[in-house]
């Protein structure tokens, strides 16, 4: 940051009337936590003819980081009034709502940002899920993950949390269907097969669970010993314990 600080200062000295340079400097000061100085640069950029929408966005971002979410929201609202298509700002407003203490509104904005944003990310989807889980809305959280995956793709960082939620809700077949869908996206993955076994186990389908555990173990064992690092050793131990436990339960029934 010191490096950036010095560099943006130099650039600004070269072109003091360029609003873009002031915005860049504001961003750096924001990163340094120098909120007042950052806002001053934003106002200077405004005086030099900077784009009001961009400046509103930067102001909102600074206010958010500085702990003034209500002011951030006001800025975002202003820009959105002019640019209702600026979906990226919806996410910022969602953050503001969250900081204000209105998670319902935050969830709404997060959902809209993900639905309308040009390139939503798994991180945004997870943030949306977290807000809904915080509200105790597991079904809505699951829908949020699905809506996110409709935009982002059926990626592991979203599908596995969805599996966890399905299991919590007792929807084992749905969880298994998700794991099948995930499995179709990549070569056989022992982590995912193991998870499938655990879901089956939880669903009381011992024989099928054992088959999955065995499949995952076979996949690990197929790797040369030297290629089995700690994650594989740990997984193998977990699988062997799960397998033994499932077998024990099977025998005692």
């Amino acid at each position, binding site marked *: 940051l*010191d*490096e*950036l600080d010095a*560099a*943006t200062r130099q*650039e600004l000295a070269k072109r003091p009337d360029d609003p*873009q340079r002031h915005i*860049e400097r504001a*961003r*750096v000061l924001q990163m340094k936590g120098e909120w007042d100085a950052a806002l001053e640069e934003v106002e200077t950029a405004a005086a030099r003819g900077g784009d009001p929408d961009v400046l509103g966005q930067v102001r909102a971002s600074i206010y958010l980081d500085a702990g003034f979410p209500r002011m951030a929201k006001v800025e975002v609202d202003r820009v959105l009034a002019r640019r209702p298509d600026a979906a*990226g700002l919806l*996410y910022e407003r969602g953050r503001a709502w969250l900081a204000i203490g209105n998670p319902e509104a935050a969830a709404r904005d997060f959902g809209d*940002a993900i639905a309308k*944003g*040009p*390139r*939503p*990310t*798994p*991180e*945004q989807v*997870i943030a949306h899920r977290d807000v809904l889980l915080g509200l105790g809305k597991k079904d809505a959280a699951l829908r949020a993950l699905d809506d996110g995956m409709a935009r*982002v*793709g*059926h*990626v*592991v*960082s*979203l599908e*596995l949390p969805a599996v966890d939620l399905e299991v919590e809700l007792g929807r084992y077949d749905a969880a298994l269907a998700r794991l099948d869908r995930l499995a179709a*996206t*990549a*070569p*056989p*993955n*022992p*982590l*995912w097969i193991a998870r499938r076994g655990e879901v089956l186990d939880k669903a009381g389908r011992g024989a099928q669970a054992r088959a999955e555990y065995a499949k995952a173990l076979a996949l690990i064992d197929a*790797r*040369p010993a*030297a*290629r*089995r*690092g*700690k*994650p*594989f050793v740990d*997984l193998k131990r977990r699988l062997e314990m799960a397998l033994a436990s499932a077998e024990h339960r099977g025998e005692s029934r």
Partner: protein
Amino acid sequence: MKTRIRAGLVGVVTSMTALATVAAATTVVRGPYLQTPTTASMIVRWRTDLPSSSRVAIGPAPGSLATNYDSLVPVTEHVVPVTGLTPDTLYYYSVGSISGAFVGDDVDHFFRTAPTTGASTPFRIWTIGDAGFTGADLDAVRDTFKAYNGGTSATDLFLLLGDNAYLTGTDMQYQAAVYDEHAEMLRTTPVYSTFGNHERISSQDLAQTGPYYDMFSFPTLGEAGGVGSGTESYYSFDYANVHFIVLDSEDFTPSSASGPMFTWLQSDLAATTADWVIALWHRPPYSRGLFHNSDTELNEVRMRQFVLPALESVGVDLVLCGHSHNYERSFFLDGHYGNGASFTNAFKKDLGDGDPTGDGAYRKADLGPIANSGAVYVVDGSGSEHRNATLAHPAHLVGLLETGSMVIDITGNTLTAQFLSGAGVIDDQFQIVKGSSCAPTPASGCNTAVRGKLTVRENADPARSRWSWKWKGGTIDAADVGDPTAETDVAVCVYDATGTLFGGQVFHGGVAWRTIKRGFEYRDKTLANHGFQKIKIRTGTPSLGAYVQAKAKGVGIGNPALPATTPITAQFLNLDSGKCWSSEFTTTRRNQADRLTAVIP
């Protein structure tokens, strides 16, 4: 002439005449540049000053571009996936509109598709970090690579390690520092990048907004191999026998072993079966660059604490970073996740420099990634300037205050990385060699001795098969042997006229090696290394009884095809220095299907 029109776009065109008029005045102002190469596809991108339809025409030679890939929507940012291609194949191309080509259809516009995934096809990577300042230094770094590369910029992969365009990663700055600067390379060599802290000023990784995300097309759903991440901020891809992992060390730096990037990384690592794993991100886990101390910068600390254990546990081979404007290169490391002060020799898997012309390559026993078997960490951040700093991080073996880039060649089981300075000098190099088999042919120029004996007994029960060899009557200089207890890797190999009979490499260290009077001894009751039970080297002159002795038995020796074809050569090699001691048996006393005895004289 074949034409492929991208699905769903056909109905958009209303006036072909209007398009043709636009196309006539259209100029390519960025690119073409190549993205996300796979065995069967390539994404071709370019920018025009005016909207036009998009066409990529490809063929086996200039003047023979018979296959078109069209998109009819008028745009200025053209992104055309070229599909249905053959692996490891050279294609010439042009870009333009449906009315005609703007550029290309000449010897300067071509690309090669990725080799078959998993194949040991040799390939080259050129990588630069923090190369965002335009000017003479960046020009020199670029031009020295071209000279080194045989007078052409074209290579197989171009990796950007972040901070690719100073000062703030704007589109205009990218135009100057990347697209104009490297135009020749970009039109022939696919480019991948990682997100740096200067990109973060104009682009947001959390929302994937800004110029960085507008201008690149990286694989997000496993299109080029690996597990899909859902984001261009972090992703993976396969190229030949290498799995590449690109991470985000900015806003997605994990603060624990959790979160979307970490969840994805775990699954991606569990799925890969590639021979090599190379990871890249911007902020280095070990550095003492000016302004950037990996002990105090939180992102660096967290990448080291949370990401490195995951990568090392699956045997990552090489990690490339930038951020500090200098070159730093680590020892062959494993398991160091603390601050610099806590670094000790215990974290070094090899005490040497890894330089094939120095004290020898780093070695891994298996071709595939072996858990916690050592990795080299590189700070390749002097692509366009260098800054004075102490470079005193104890994890690093080399620190250079000069501009430059890295050239990485991967040839099957061997990775060779070189730091090419802006002055065109190789100022550092290291090599990682995988596998422990003998070289396919005997080494030449070895020390010979007046006495030698080789015996082989093959048994119907392979566990009882055995062989032994002794070299005696020559001189063994202690300096030539090195120190297998500490850092010298050795091999004992036996060949006949048709190839390798048995033997293999034995790496340094471990409990099996010990120092003896005037030499070293390896003893292993488990016979884990190619069946070697004993290897003994006594240095000195013939009068002092210098000798080399090797004994092996069991299934680990393999199933050598006897009778052997003379001449038979047995060798002991110091793999690090290339020094060797050899017995050549031109005749045999016995040479049958189950036994062999050969003696010198």
